[in-house]
């Protein structure tokens, strides 16, 4: 079903996300060692299958609203690693010119409507973007990423209710990685599958393996079709896991065996194996892509480091349009 080039693209993006996350952690640690705190860093290693599959389906003009854990989604939507890296360092050349940092990268020209530091902060905004698409009779869709933790926030309810009432092209994409900061899912949600809530809004809901590219791809594809065809929103829950603690300053606290189990379900080797079995991916090719990615990341770091900081006289720039 998925064209071969697309499959390779997806893997490529998964690599890129993974390498970006590794690099960003290293940079943050290096700065921390120098006594420079670069803010909160929330990495998404382990969740790449979701971002990459979705990125492969969306058009450039579709909207994505991401979270504080948004590097993967941004890369999958086409964000340039060098501008992202520069933003991480607060540089003038970063996506938000140093105003945003890790949690707030925007590029409306590629439909990247930004990260959000507020858990669930993007839910109602994504509904607005979908309303706008419907209003303009474009067939864009609006994707809102959020976590299992965010599913407890009141805005979730208001957003999905309005989207269902108005049949808006929104895809509510919940990445259920079983933890919200240090809180296990069972402390936050009294049901097994968050997607079951969809029924309460006459909305389509699906809970799927978020570490399996094909499953995510297929499920998301039909949700996008639903949206484009004017059939309203979908609530998709992808079960997945982050490989690292909630953010840089919080130590690991999750059960060892749980983590171990999920590391074995790492979506990257899993998808590599699939492609190898399909004879689409050779070792050589794999190596080649990995090297390209390494180069992109190295260039991004160099670009970011070489870039100037914003100057103090620009403090008040960009408050008003």
């Amino acid at each position: 079903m998925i064209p071969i080039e697309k499959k390779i693209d997806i893997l490529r993006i998964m690599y890129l996300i993974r390498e970006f996350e590794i690099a960003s952690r290293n940079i943050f640690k290096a700065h921390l060692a120098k006594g420079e705190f670069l803010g909160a860093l929330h990495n998404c290693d382990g969740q790449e299958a979701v971002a990459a599959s979705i990125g492969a389906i969306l058009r450039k003009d579709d909207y994505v609203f991401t979270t504080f854990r948004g590097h993967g989604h941004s890369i999958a939507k086409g964000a340039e690693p060098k501008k992202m890296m520069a933003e991480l360092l607060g540089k003038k050349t970063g996506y938000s010119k140093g105003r945003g940092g890790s949690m707030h990268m925007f590029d409306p020209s590629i439909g990247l409507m930004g990260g959000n530091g507020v858990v669930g902060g993007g839910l109602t905004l994504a509904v607005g973007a979908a309303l706008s698409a419907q209003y303009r009779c474009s067939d864009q869709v609006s994707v809102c990423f959020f976590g299992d933790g965010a599913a407890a926030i009141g805005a979730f309810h208001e957003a999905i209710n309005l989207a269902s009432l108005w049949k808006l092209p929104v895809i509510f994409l919940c990445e259920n990685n079983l933890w919200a900061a240090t809180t296990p899912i069972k402390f936050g949600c009294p049901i097994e599958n968050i997607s079951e809530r969809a029924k309460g809004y006459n909305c389509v809901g699906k809970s799927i393996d978020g570490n399996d590219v094909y499953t995510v791809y297929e499920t998301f594809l039909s949700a996008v079709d639903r949206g484009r065809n004017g059939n309203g929103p979908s609530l998709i829950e992808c079960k997945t896991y982050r490989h690292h603690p909630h953010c840089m300053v919080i130590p690991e606290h999750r059960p060892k065996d749980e983590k171990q189990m999920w590391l074995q379900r790492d979506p990257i080797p899993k998808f590599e194996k699939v492609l190898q079995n399909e004879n689409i991916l050779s070792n050589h090719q794999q190596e080649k892509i990995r090297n390209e990615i390494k180069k992109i990341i190295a260039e991004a770091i160099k670009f970011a480091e070489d870039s100037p900081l914003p100057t103090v006289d620009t403090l008040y720039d960009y408050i008003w349009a």
Partner: protein
Amino acid sequence: MRDITYTAALREALFEEMEIDESVFLIGEDIADFGGVFGVTKNLLQKFGRKRVCQTPISEGAIIGAAVGAAMTGLRPVAELMYVDFILFAMDQTVNQAAKLRYMSGGTVKVPVVIRAQQGCGTCEAAQHSQQLEAWFMHTPGLKVVIPSNPYDAKGLLKTAIRDDNPVIFLEHRMLYSARQQVPDDTWTIPFGRAEIKKSGKDITVVATSLCVHKALEVAKDNHFDIEVIDPRTLVPLDIDTIAESVVKTGRLLVVHESIAQCGVGAEIIRLITEQYFKAFKTAPKVLGGAYVPMPFAKVLEENAVPQKRDIIETINNMMKE
């Protein structure tokens, strides 16, 4: 010239801007078939259809959030909140999102949204229906704040608000909806950041907002002191120069508003003028604001919880004595 109400003025502004610009639409509770609880959007459904007059469930967070999301993606929503008190369910969308998105995005995102909200007291609706929150919004970088006191200003400023590329909080006072005024036959806009001297005078500067402008003007009319009454009209941006010039002339400053005095608009105006024009004062500047109390229900208490004409007169008399 013709005579219109504040409500009609607002409706004309909405009507005209919706006619000119297809990207302008309305979103809020009870605004379509019924035309809004205060009647501002009456007949707009009939003219523009459901696509552009979107009646929502009771979901203030989603109303503002959807408006902000639509504004980020090319539209110019005008959201209506029935009472500003209910924005307390939409503060994340208003303050964490609308106000900050442009800055956080380094100027790549634009949020041309207008949030119209009705506020005020005078109808015995008690503490959860009588807050006046302009001071909070002034304290929030990234929000423009408009607070018109008459039909002419209401229309001209609402049209400007809709054309502005930034989030604008537009605060209407419910006791003003039926206020009438002679206005020009053709249309107009009013730029933000221009206070208006509603009456000039040389003895004392009274800065008043919203309903209090009228109280101040009535006091000024038959007072033996020569009172200058200034209506800032927009609080962000604030035309501090016009106020300063007046204070330099009169040497006395009184600010009158219904919203709470503590950390309020009056305190801010006093801060600004005191910091820069301290020497101009002949006597201590003063704020007459809402009493430090959740708005009580009983008329007799409600009346005494906000400045009345007698309070303005008494304060002016005291200030002129010093």
